[in-house]
């Protein structure tokens, strides 16, 4: 079996680290720890950086890489304060280790566009502390004052004499020195790495030659490969099965029951798949209570729920009274479908359960949750279970789940060998935790001048808060703050605003999908805003500017997007423009989109997106090109949601199965994209998700401008374009 270079390299680094005797910084200092702890409510120590005698500066990554660039951004934060020689940076992924979860409520999770927001300060402080110790070590070595020493590119220099020492040469002495009680962070003006485009992403070289090790590439000695047959109906179970024909397939070793269904364990993926096909005909399912559920029925139940008022997440003035008394009022209904994550790498996990230990190798967004699932499934003690993260072939929220972990641990335990469970694309699409179906009612009232004086939103959606923290809704008086992200924080200056939330779950698994609550509200709020503006006889861009008068950051972002797009220039013949803006994950994004609609009267009417211009204010920037990349990719992700795909339910199961019926935006449909970053000194916001939330609103508004037809559902279908 071939070894995967990335995994092997990491194993090698771990060994080196254990034997190397370098300088370890991070388990550091009481007072500094106390200040960190004050910010995040934990007193756990942290270990972030290690410097070896050979000058290698190794940064420990608790945040994992799915394409969003943490593997480069995290070392940049440490390296800036430590004045590293960037070519000597190494990284090592951290398994489940409770000392690292301080940035996310004790959990190691790479989600919520939170990595930089949660860890920029601890990582910079860790780098600054390390630097201070190295300077003290050099000063002691030379018998000079620390004030006369400076650092650059991995060396300490004594300025008056020009002498210098490599960091690696100082590790022994530094290890014996006390760690500083306080550190001073650099002023942004003196940054050498942060905010610079010259830094290339550390993961890219091994992603252009096949070396990068993803979870699906894991190989272990004696490993078998399994697929898991799940009941096609959500909530269904195996009633009975006969594995005779499946186990007769060449290469199939065993069929074992697991919590989710039946695991077909084989020598390779193809044999497992053939065994699974044979088995599928020989299983009787108990399909459970959802066996008759359809999308139409789901929609009907949501509509019913939306008839009653929900829990108020925001209540300024008296929206109901203003609606009752206004000259002009109107109401619209918006619906958005379930959506699959469709990460390019299907779900997978490799597990090896032995008598006294369990190892799991996998692409995951959550070491803590993975560890918990492996402990539960293996029956071993927490300190006998080890999580080994790999690169992720996309995450988008899907890899914060642990269903695939349970599959692999149970299968390995049953057969007594390492087992890699690999899901097919069909498994992946039909057994996701979907972006939830959502039903939204919107109301607005206009004054005589056509300016909105009341705005009301009623949102019905399953609750992720309740799913992840059972009982939480009772404590929040029924409000899921995740669901109302992008709605309750409406930035427009309207005197009467009411935003209501109603929890409703028809039973289809739902989860965190890139931009989460904002994935709905970015579209609904901004599409409705354009209709409100038009109803009052206002230009939607100018009305936004006016009503953002109390939000200068928002206004600046909106104006930058408009300006760079050429909003004030004539629209090219046959095209139309739309714009939208939203704050979510601590970042403000505005997008202008330019479209044309072909054959609007026909069954094959189609939206063509020519150009998208994005402006983003994400605070001070760690790595500008990563921000641009995330804005670009997030917009394409949002474009697929707006134009292409939806998950529908027939007889309690998902009707779609693969990319032919859950299509993606492809190269020939990918518009020209420009991203403009607002210079800012505010603290960093998240960048992985916001543009996904903002794009559909801009698109809906552009399509409405082109056709005169408002868009009340996603994805946009030809019949919605017909005049």
């Amino acid at each position, binding site marked *: 079996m071939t070894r995967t270079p990335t995994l092997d390299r990491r194993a090698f680094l771990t060994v080196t680290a254990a034997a190397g005797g370098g300088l370890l910084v991070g388990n550091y200092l009481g007072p500094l720890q106390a200040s960190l702890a004050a910010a995040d409510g934990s007193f756990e120590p942290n270990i972030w950086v290690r410097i070896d005698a050979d000058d290698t500066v190794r940064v420990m990554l608790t945040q994992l890489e799915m394409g969003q660039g943490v593997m480069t951004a995290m070392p940049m934060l440490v390296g800036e304060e430590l004045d590293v020689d960037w070519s000597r940076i190494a990284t090592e992924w951290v398994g489940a280790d409770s000392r690292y979860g301080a940035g996310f409520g004790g959990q190691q999770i790479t989600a919520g566009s939170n990595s930089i927001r949660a860890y920029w300060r601890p990582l910079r402080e860790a780098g600054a502390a390390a630097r201070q110790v190295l300077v003290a070590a050099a000063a002691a070595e030379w018998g000079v004052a620390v004030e006369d020493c400076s650092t650059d590119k991995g060396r300490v220099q004594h300025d008056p004499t020009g002498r210098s020492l490599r960091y690696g040469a100082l590790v022994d002495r530094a290890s014996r020195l006390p760690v500083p009680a306080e550190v001073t962070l650099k002023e942004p003006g003196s940054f050498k790495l942060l905010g610079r485009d010259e830094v290339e992403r550390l993961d890219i070289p091994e*992603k252009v030659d096949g070396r990068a090790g993803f979870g699906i590439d894991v190989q272990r000695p004696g490993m078998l490969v399994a697929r898991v047959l799940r009941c096609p109906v959500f909530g269904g179970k195996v009633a009975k099965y006969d594995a005779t024909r499946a186990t007769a397939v060449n290469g199939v070793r065993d069929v074992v029951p697991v919590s989710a269904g039946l695991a077909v364990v084989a020598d390779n993926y193809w044999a497992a798949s053939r065994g699974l096909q044979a088995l599928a005909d020989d299983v009787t399912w108990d399909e459970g209570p959802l066996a008759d559920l359809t999308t139409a029925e789901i929609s009907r139940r949501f509509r019913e729920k939306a008839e009653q008022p929900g829990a108020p997440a925001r209540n300024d003035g008296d929206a109901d009274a203003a609606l009752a008394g206004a000259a002009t009022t109107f109401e619209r209904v918006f619906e958005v479908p379930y959506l699959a994550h469709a990460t*390019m790498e299907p779900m997978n996990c490799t597990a090896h359960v032995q008598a006294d230990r369990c190892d799991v190798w996998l692409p995951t967004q959550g070491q803590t949750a993975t560890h918990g699932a492996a402990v539960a499934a293996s029956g071993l003690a927490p300190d006998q279970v080890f999580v080994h993260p790999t690169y992720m072939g996309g995450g988008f929220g899907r890899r914060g789940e642990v269903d695939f972990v349970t599959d692999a641990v149970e299968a390995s335990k049953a057969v007594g060998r390492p087992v890699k469970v690999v899901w097919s694309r069909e498994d992946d699409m039909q057994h996701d935790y979907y972006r939830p179906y959502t039903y939204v009612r919107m109301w607005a009232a206009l004054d005589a001048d056509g300016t909105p004086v009341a705005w009301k939103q009623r949102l019905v959606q399953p609750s992720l808060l309740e799913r992840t923290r059972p009982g939480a809704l009772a404590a929040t008086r029924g409000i899921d703050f995740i669901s109302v992200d992008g709605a309750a924080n409406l930035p427009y200056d309207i005197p009467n605003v009411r935003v209501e939330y109603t929890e409703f779950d028809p039973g289809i698994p739902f989860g965190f999908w890139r931009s989460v609550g904002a994935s709905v509200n970015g579209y609904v709020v901004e599409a409705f805003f354009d209709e409100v503006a038009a109803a009052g006889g206002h230009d939607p861009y100018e009305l936004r500017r006016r009503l953002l008068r109390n939000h200068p950051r928002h206004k600046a972002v909106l104006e930058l997007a408009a300006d760079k797009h050429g909003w004030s220039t004539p629209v090219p013949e046959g095209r139309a423009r739309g714009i939208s803006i939203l704050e979510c994950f601590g970042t403000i994004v505005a997008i202008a989109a330019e479209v044309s609609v072909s054959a609007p009267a026909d069954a094959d009417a189609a939206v063509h997106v020519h150009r998208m211009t994005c402006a983003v204010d994400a605070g001070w920037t760690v790595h500008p090109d990563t921000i641009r990349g995330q804005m670009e990719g997030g917009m*394409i992700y949002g474009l697929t949601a707006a134009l292409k795909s939806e998950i529908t339910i027939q007889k309690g199961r998902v009707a779609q199965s693969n*990319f032919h019926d859950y299509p993606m935006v492809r190269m020939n449909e990918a518009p020209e994209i420009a991203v403009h970053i607002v210079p800012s000194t505010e603290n960093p916001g998240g960048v992985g998700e916001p543009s996904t939330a903002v794009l559909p609103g801009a698109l809906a508004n552009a399509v409405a401008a082109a056709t005169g037809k408002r868009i009340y559902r996603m994805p946009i279908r030809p019949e919605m374009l017909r005049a």
Partner: protein
Amino acid sequence: MVSLTVNERRYDLDIEPEMPLLWAIRDVIGLTGTKFGCGIAQCGACTVHLDGVPIRSCTTPASRAVGRRITTIEGLSPDGTHPLQVAWVAEQVPQCGYCQSGQLMSAAALLARTPRPNDQEIDAAMTGNVCRCGTYQRIRRAIHRAAEGA
């Protein structure tokens, strides 16, 4: 027994001839740079070259590759310096990276037959490769960059 020549090396494999080439390459030979994304020729993640022509290895039986030259991402260049690989780094193309082996193999086949492709030719050659991370415009720029450097 099926004999395959992958990246100029011969492998004698104890597999059934109808096993898709993808799984022969990944699970039996152990070259994991070629990826699985859909299994039905819809995403391009599994793209390899058969006598220089890009094919979807997930739907190509291993038997069809017997006696022919198979090139995978590991064999695109000896040291990661194919002009496209250099351009992919220069344009900082990959995000998660999972689709990129397939993207590079499709692009390499394009440049081999069309050294200076225009945008329409890039569309035609690359539309079979899905990138869920949405790196399309960077891929387009990188192809142009590699073509101009050639």
